[in-house]
């Protein structure tokens, strides 16, 4: 009940923030720009439009997660609203969970809006496709859940800019983990092998969630891989949130 209150509070606050509207409109613009490339694409415009749509949704929601997430706790402290809320009978972990879930809901709604826009574009341009095109978006939700958790984690102990930067760096590295592992496999140095393996498993393997290419090329994806990836996402998120709660519990305001 209390968590829900913070959740909806966060959701409403964020949805009414103009930055969100701008980002979503940007997403639509990106998708609409695909009309321009049609004459230039030499028969590949279907692929390009699908790529553009999925990438636009992906990029916009990740940006929202990083920038809005990084500011979430800071804003409460700056406005002193956090004093009022924490002085009430709500546990600190409940507060953080509420904020996190509120932002996740914002991302989910934004993603839904953009996905509808994407489907419209596909329909209007008579591009054939089925629901498998939306599978990357399903995994995107879980990638976003990790990124948001990281943004909130950092925001408990650094400034919003710092949180955004660190989260972005982890997003970046998270997609390079496969190369890291390969590097370790090639290297003859056992120390490097151990180090790369360690980081490979510790860092969030965000490349697991990237199936955009496979879906656009109609490569079959096994259902079990998707399920395990989702479970990975949930587990990793839970871990980050746990550490965030621990830090938040001990924090002085």
């Amino acid at each position, binding site marked *: *009940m*209390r968590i*829900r*209150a*913070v959740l*909806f*509070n966060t959701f*409403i*606050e964020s949805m*009414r*923030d103009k930055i969100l509207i701008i980002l979503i409109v940007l997403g639509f613009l990106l998708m609409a720009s695909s009309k321009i490339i049609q004459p230039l694409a030499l028969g590949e415009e279907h692929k390009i439009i699908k790529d553009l749509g999925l990438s636009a949704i992906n990029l916009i929601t990740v940006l929202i997660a990083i920038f809005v997430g990084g500011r979430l706790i800071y804003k409460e402290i700056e*406005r*002193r*609203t956090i*004093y*009022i*809320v*924490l*002085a*009430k*009978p*709500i*546990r600190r972990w409940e507060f953080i969970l509420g904020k996190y879930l509120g932002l996740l809901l914002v991302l989910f709604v934004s993603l839904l809006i953009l996905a509808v826009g994407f489907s419209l574009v596909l329909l209007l341009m008579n591009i054939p496709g089925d629901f498998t095109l939306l599978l990357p978006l399903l995994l995107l939700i879980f990638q976003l859940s990790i990124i948001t958790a990281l943004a909130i984690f950092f925001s408990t102990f650094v400034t919003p800019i710092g949180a955004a930067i660190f989260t972005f760096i982890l997003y970046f590295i998270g997609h390079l983990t496969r190369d890291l592992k390969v590097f370790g496999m090639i290297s003859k140095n056992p120390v490097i092998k151990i180090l790369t393996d360690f980081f490979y498993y510790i860092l969030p393997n965000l490349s697991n969630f990237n199936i955009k290419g496979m879906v656009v090329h109609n490569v079959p994806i096994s259902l079990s891989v998707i399920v395990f990836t989702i479970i990975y996402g949930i587990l990793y998120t839970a871990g980050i949130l746990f550490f965030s709660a621990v830090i938040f519990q001990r924090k*002085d*305001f």
Partner: protein
Amino acid sequence: MALINIENLTRDYRVGFGGFKKMRALDGLNLTIEKGEIFGFLGPNGSGKTTTIKLLLGLIKPTSGKITIFGKSPYDTRIKKKIGYLPESPYFYDYLTAYEFLYFCTQVLETKEDRIDELLKLVGMEEARNIPMGKFSRGMLQRIGVAQALLGEPELVILDEPMGGLDPIGRKEVRDIIVNLRKEGKTVFFSSHILSDAEMICDRVGILIRGKLVSLGQMEKILSEEIESIEITVKNISDTVRQELQKLALHYLPSDNKVMFVVPSEEEKDKIINYVVNNKGTIVSVVPRRKTLEEYFMTFIH
């Protein structure tokens, strides 16, 4: 049983590069707050009042010392239902309306929404019910702040500078609310640096200077002990009598047929009264001039 029990409470902050230097915001505070009193926690800016309040609410941890509220630790969420709190200079959520914000508070408190309209009326904000709080003036925010503090019908109300940003009418309204709370059997703990307000409503005051509690006691007692001077106004006395009385007084003020003498203490006052009465004069008035709380306060500032 004391509502709040503070024992040897100390709070240090790390300052400077690398955080090696320590700044002591609160130094060995000992204080108890009793049920049903209005307690004024006074001191200049930066004296540690807000730090104390944050410690009371479990927003920060003490460096050493102990606090119990309602017999429990400030971190215990069970007691928080009984506490209403208003921070200093609050902003709220820009995009929520006053009603939505108060509704949110009731959800967190897990109480019913019935009180919202009643409280909006109490603080004079019913008309601003549906206006987003980003558009509120300082005074309006302060009023909503008071409203949210009272939402859960708390037994203990903690207010950090409740008069901040209010015009004289607003300050009177807040004073009235605080006095009313006491009538309802509630306890009020508030901090302020506006001493005239405190003088009017507090039962007890504590004065905090640079983290140390330099004075603690009943308001009446503090003020009565500090009689500065007594003004005696008399009439129908002859010039000779007047000249005699002048010797006892600090100074005097003639006006019309009356004369006012200012004497430093009760002793002189008694002498003058006797003398006037014996010489068939008339005592018009006897007014003891107390130090205001402000003047009393200033003595601690050197």
